[in-house]
């Protein structure tokens, strides 16, 4: 499954959104005495940079050859970022996404550890334009089940 891909990077000839990372904030939930911690929102930073980088390495090793460097999908492999992806997953729980990732790669389903599946999800969130936060994305089912996927706000919203 390993694919040797040229590692490339470039600043893209697209307008960078003014909101950008200035708008990124950390988790807005607070933990006070006796209060239950609310599940963090993917729109406000629900994973760490470290997680996303680890997820990227896993993605390059296990996912990229079919889903593409830009997560646009290829042949039978669906896109993992962008509007077609978010059209399917908008409002669905992150636990459902982790379960879906756990079915991958198709020839070795169920072989990713929970940590790895969550790291890949973190990289997917990053690629979908969702902000980095201060706390790592949980690997616990009950926490992930309470978190929902949302695409980043559209320009003008």
């Amino acid at each position, binding site marked *: 499954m390993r694919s040797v891909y040229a590692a490339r990077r470039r600043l893209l000839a697209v307008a960078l959104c003014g909101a*950008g990372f200035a708008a990124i904030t950390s988790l807005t939930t607070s933990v006070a005495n006796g209060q239950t911690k609310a599940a963090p929102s993917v729109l406000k930073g629900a994973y760490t940079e470290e997680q996303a*980088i680890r997820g990227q390495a896993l993605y390059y090793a296990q996912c990229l050859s079919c889903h593409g*460097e*830009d997560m646009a999908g290829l042949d039978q492999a669906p896109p993992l970022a*962008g*509007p077609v992806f978010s*059209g399917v997953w908008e409002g669905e729980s992150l636990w459902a996404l982790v379960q879906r990732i756990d079915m991958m790669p198709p020839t070795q389903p169920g072989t990713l550890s929970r940590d790895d599946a969550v790291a890949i999800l973190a990289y997917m969130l990053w690629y979908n334009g969702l902000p980095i936060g201060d706390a790592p994305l949980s690997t616990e089912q009950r926490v992930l089940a309470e978190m929902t996927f949302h695409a*980043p706000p559209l320009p003008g919203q």
Partner: protein
Amino acid sequence: MKPTRILLSAAALGAALSITTVARTQPADSAAAPEWPTYGGNLASHRYSPLDQINAENFKDLEIAWRLRTDFLGPRPDTLYSATPLYVNGLLYTTAGQRRAAIALDPATGELIWMHREDEGARGDAAARQGAGRGVSYWASPDGADRRIVYVTPGYRMLALDADTGLPIESFGDDGVVDLKLDFDQEIDPIDSNVGLNATPLIVNDVIVVGAAHRPAGSMDSTWNVRGYVRGYDVRTGERLWTFHTIPLRGEFGYDTWEDGSAERNGNTGVWAQMSADPELGLVYLPVEMPTADYNGFNRPGDGLFGESLVAVDVRTGERRWHYQTVHHGLWDYDLPCAPILFDMQKDGETVKALAQPTKSAFLFVLNRETGEPIWPIEERPVPQSESPYEKTSPTQPFPTWPEPFDRQGISHDDLNDLTPELRAEAEELVKSYRLGPLFTPPAVDTPDGPLGTLMLPADVGGANWPGGAFDPETNRLYIHSHTAVFTLRNIPADLEPFDPSPAGAPRSSAAGGAGGPPPGLGAGPPGLGAGPPGLGADPPGLGAPRAGTFLQGTIPLIKPPYDRITAYDMNTGEMLWQKVHGTTPDNIRNHPALAGLDVERLGAYGRIFIGVLTTKTLLIAGEGSVHTNEAGETVALLRAYDKATGEDVEGRIEMPARQTGSPMTYMHNGKQYIVLAVTHAGANAGGELIAYALP
């Protein structure tokens, strides 16, 4: 009623299990009712039924008659349930679940009659084509006493089951099983070799014809892949009768179309699509895919027969009668995706045995099916050439001059989204980073200063794809669904280097799709991440900036609508009769503030939408390929019907709980007409489901 029978056998590869809950003494009814005995409705792949109990007046009254979730038939839910059941022998037959169980259902209720599963262990896990597959094939002896269901497992084994009980036919192959990784005219690994099939076999004149499919070839590690030879088997014994070498052996016709002896070092070139057959002519029509790899032909200079060709083969001997190549030396993954539609054309006062082969590139190749001669002229026209010195682009490609293509071909500034002036301006800015061009523009070499790639329209997945079209033999009209999406095609800079033709040399297929990608507003990564010189290497680049997608304002396609459509042709004249936008606009386009005030309710569904259509006496029926939110806030996809003469919408809003992923079929059972189709749910409810609709 007999008691439940359970057969457990310790097969070499794992356990096989058949469960029979009901043993019937005779088929239920329907001596006169039309059956649906093959995947395509008949061997001509018409997807047509003369039934008319469900019609334009009552379509709006359709209700769900029964539903069957497939999760319990495999270790995980289906992710793209694409089967079309058969209705024959008074039962409904199909495959279902991630383990591709064969099942028989009560057509009135969906109740399980029998089930056969194969646990293929490591061989199944390594399957080149996973999942439930597209269904099964049926055969009956002339006296009707011997009735069989034939299908191919994920591990590429062919089974023949008793159609009444689901128990393996012991006289077929090795206790009901033929190992398709053997007797293949090539040595391949018995467990993890890259070959399988999710299409149904085709049975004609007592011969089972079996194709071959591989893992998607954009991701091949080497061009030395398994060859996708096609084979014929005796339906009674499972004996191999013939093998057609889709990559010719030395000395065989077509070998010299592989320059530099490259036939010796290439694979794929299988038939992953459905096939059609003419029992009277004794011909089976093979829509052949491309050689390895999808977007790079360095290792296969020349036209490469029978890549991307339609081949007519004698079903008794496997000998080639004729062939027609639809793409020479393909670089676009425009391989033949579906069964050709066979029909008798009324032309100039004569009846011509013809066929129409839909393509991903949105052509209909209309040929005489006896001779392979074009019905209307097909011209070889010059096409753009690759800038890589190692890619020997074909100087010309075949262009059917008639009928007109059923979807847009090539991309120019005229194709850019112009729903608003602002969107048009953004689109113009975005395409400055890409190469535009006509159909068959080769991949651009993606260099730091150069374009990000070639924009390709139709996308690699079409145009048309595996569902193919439908045909009404009473009026000789053909219907086909297609979708209009952009794909980014690129070579990497290494493609400017010489190619290593040894087994270790990767084919460097490096295209990237255009149906995804992040919103262009995403900013650069945080400081300290992913800095460093751009260059080649196997390591991930670190979090820099994601690649741009081909969307405007986050979610609006770069190109102008419509995004999916159905086209109708008169096949006596080739004239296009009508085109109709099919799908409801997805939420994230429909509700976009940049489109406020515009009528964008039905621009079509965007993305990888594969929709099969069904024709009945008066209707054309197809579900939507993506979901949207209705007024009640529910996630739905519509089952739509059209007046097949005019394309007008038929009254009625039939909301399905998930998107259509398998082509619909219909049957009459005990006086009631049913429409059955496979859908796939996403998210927390993920999984496949068969849904049957009928009148109250």
